[in-house]
């Protein structure tokens, strides 16, 4: 069963009375427990896709379903990890993580268990009572991911989750995410500008055209990963050094470059 399905999705924006197409017929499905990366040139509408799945926006035509149900507004079944973290600065780390569970009416003792489990998973021990401003960017994003994970969501939607981090922290977080996904696999749809991040993390990579966005091609990374045994390498830099990895990455770059030529105003 597919967890996330975009069925012939169109999205138009109106500005000054004129209508602009942002998405021009998106068909995409993310299978259960699959990780799909969405890449594309700036302004292609990938963020819009994510927001449609999250329920922050509504498609003009077509529909988006998650877990078989059409999306009707945001909710904890489609947990979002924002680029700018969006943690509540006035709550401690553990209160931030527990907040969604409180909304669901989860009993206090169960809450505590689940929260400490995910704190352990994300390597946040010792920081439970800290406030976000006291944490580095990487740590804050861990909290944001923890907050999403603890909800046990149908789908995890990540909007450039590592975009606000410096390059080195970013790479460390990518490694982390792979480790966590092995322990606790989930259905994930994420957006990124970094092509090697997409290839490293995803089972499939969907490349979008420039605006108005459509799915240009989808690459099956999992097949290559399994065939070339990327998982036998612990370190990210070793994986990124492999010829098969480089090959995929270059292919995607070239595909994106085609979209950038004749860049729209």
């Amino acid at each position, binding site marked *: 069963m597919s967890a996330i399905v975009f069925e012939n999705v169109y999205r138009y924006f109106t500005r000054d009375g004129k209508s602009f197409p942002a998405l021009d017929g998106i068909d995409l499905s993310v299978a259960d427990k699959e990780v799909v990366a969405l890449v594309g040139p700036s302004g292609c509408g990938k963020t819009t896709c994510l927001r449609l799945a*999250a329920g*922050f926006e509504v498609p003009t035509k077509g529909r988006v379903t998650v877990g078989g149900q059409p999306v009707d*507004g*945001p*909710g*904890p079944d*489609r*947990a*979002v990890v*924002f680029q*700018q973290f*969006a*943690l*509540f*600065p*006035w*709550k401690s780390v553990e209160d931030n993580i527990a*907040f*969604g569970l409180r*909304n*669901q009416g989860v009993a206090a003792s169960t809450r505590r268990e689940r929260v400490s489990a995910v704190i352990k998973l994300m390597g946040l021990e010792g920081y439970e009572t800290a*406030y*976000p*401003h*006291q944490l580095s960017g990487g740590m804050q994003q861990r909290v944001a991911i923890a*907050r999403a994970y603890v*909800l046990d969501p149908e789908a995890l939607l990540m909007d450039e989750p590592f975009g606000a981090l410096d390059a080195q922290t970013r790479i460390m977080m990518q490694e982390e995410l792979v480790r966590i996904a092995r322990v606790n696999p989930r259905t994930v749809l994420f957006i990124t500008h970094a092509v090697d991040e997409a290839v490293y993390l995803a089972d499939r990579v969907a490349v979008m055209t420039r605006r108005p966005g459509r799915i240009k091609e989808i690459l099956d990374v999992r097949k290559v990963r399994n065939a070339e045994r990327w998982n036998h390498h612990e370190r990210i830099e070793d994986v990124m050094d492999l010829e098969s990895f480089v090959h995929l990455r270059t292919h995607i770059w070239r595909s994106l470059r085609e979209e950038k030529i004749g860049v729209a105003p």
Partner: protein
Amino acid sequence: MTPSTSPGAHRSATLPARLTRRFLGTGSVLVLLAAWAGLTMVTDTISTSRFPSPLQFWQSTKQIVTVGYADGTLVGHALQSTRLVVLGFAVAAGIGVPLGVLMGWSRRAEALINPAFLVIRPIPPLAWIPLAILWLGLGDAAKIMVIFFAAFVPAVINTLSGIRAIEPPIIEAARMLGTGRWRLLSEVLLPAAAPMIFTGLRLALQAAWTTLVAAELVGALAGLGRVLNMAQQDIYPAMVMVGMAAVGVLGWATTRLLAEMERRAMPWLAH
């Protein structure tokens, strides 16, 4: 002398530099005090019928503290004034902040309420005094009404701005986490807007004091403004000065109190 405008320049690094600054600061105050004493008591350059000497100031203070002036002691008048300020401020905040939240959150509510607000807002708070006296006489109610109008406006405006300034991802995250309406208000909107709300409250408190003193000056039966008024009519500059000093001290004290409440209400801010 070369300009010293580097941003770090006001954080003097060296101990001698900091001591010099303290010295200059206290020095200027001391010089002024000495000049005050000298010009009024020693040389008679300033006539004490116009501007009181330090001695007269001290004597008037003693008078109003012990015997009393304008039908009350200093403590009595101070309590009266403070009581009214606190009451008016509380009502203004109690109505203004929720209204500001409503108008900040709902564009519809803002469009509906704004016109009325725009009519009320430009009217300087002190201009309400004659109307308040007409409607409610010279008692406490009139003062509270005027204080309300003065404090209400900054409370609403700053709360509204505070709510509008909340970054959209915070609201979206709250919705994503399935936050119910009341919890959204109490655990997301209010904490997020809290810094600006407190700014509004600070301005409201300032406005409240100004308006209260003015209202009591125009007509009152008790309070520091009354002291000022009577002292003026009695041509008693020393007592005027005592009144002003009292107003200054109370204003400072209530502001500090609010600042302390602000600090405690927002423990998560990096201080």
